[in-house]
């Protein structure tokens, strides 16, 4: 690809870079790993010739697929620092329902709950709730039918809410 890149394309790449970073961080946990992964994905895009690039219906979907596969490969090879499935969520000290809880602490629980989801479910939450992709995009990235994704999403959302309530009630 020529260095004289058109500005709109460059802006798109910067947007994609952030999304890829967030996704890889969700799976690989550490900032360094996520940065490395993101660089790899972006460089792969740079290396594509214009013809191949123009044939993609969605550069974004393609990037996210590369990112997804990279994460799954890394997790398989066990070289990455993975959040152990046995890791228990630190129970909060004491929660008084009257006292306003610091939002950041609660958000940490949410983060951990999502990190503990099986890979497929984690992907769906990341792509829908955080990246706000439409179902057809998610279907393309995960190679799953739209209907299946909706069903999964419904299940995951309910599960997360119930898990959160369990933690909250535990502290009373």
């Amino acid at each position, binding site marked *: *690809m020529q*260095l004289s890149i058109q500005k709109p394309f460059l802006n798109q790449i910067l947007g994609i*870079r*952030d999304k890829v*970073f*967030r996704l890889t*961080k969700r799976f690989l946990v550490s*900032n360094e790993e996520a*940065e490395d992964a*993101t*660089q790899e994905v972006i*460089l792969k895009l*740079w*290396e594509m010739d214009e013809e191949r690039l123009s044939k993609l219906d969605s550069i974004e979907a393609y990037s996210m697929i590369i990112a997804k596969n990279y994460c799954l490969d890394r997790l398989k090879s066990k070289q990455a620092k993975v959040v152990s499935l046995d890791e228990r969520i630190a129970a909060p000290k004491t929660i008084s*329902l009257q006292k306003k809880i610091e*939002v950041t602490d*609660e*958000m940490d*629980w*949410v*983060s951990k709950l999502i990190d503990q989801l099986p890979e497929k479910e984690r992907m769906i939450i990341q792509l829908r*709730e*955080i*990246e*706000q992709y*439409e179902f057809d995009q998610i279907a393309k990235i995960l190679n799953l039918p739209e209907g299946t994704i*909706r*069903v*999964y*999403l*419904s299940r995951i*959302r*309910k599960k*997360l*809410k119930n898990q*959160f*309530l369990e933690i*909250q009630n535990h502290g009373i």
Partner: protein
Amino acid sequence: MESKKIKKLLDSYFEGKTSISQERILRLYFTSTQDLPLKWEPHRVFFGYYNKVSLEAFPVQYSKHKSLIRPWMIAAAMVTLIISIQFATKINNKDKGPEVSQEEMEFAFHQFKESMKKLSINLNKGTQKIAYLDYLDQTTQKIIKKLL
């Protein structure tokens, strides 16, 4: 009532039936409304979390801000100052020549501080520019390497 509409949207949300724009309405509602009923606390936290995390960007780091002022320079400046003050005091004690007043010594010290400040600012400006150029250079090098 607003909360009836929200309740309806929430039910739809948990069935996986909401559209992106409906989900945005929920997110906006739960992150900006005060005094939500306790039963909706989880939603406030979840939507707040999704909102917060969606803003996280790829970290762009410039090389660490390195001060070009070395410890020996500070030491040398201090020694110079001390010697000049002592010198000024000695002249004073010998009662020869004009007395260096307290005012004059303070003024000299003040001038010294100002010039050290100026020196420091100029050195810092230089450092920032160099750091930025360094970063641009590194990134360009990486891309070029891969292209070749």
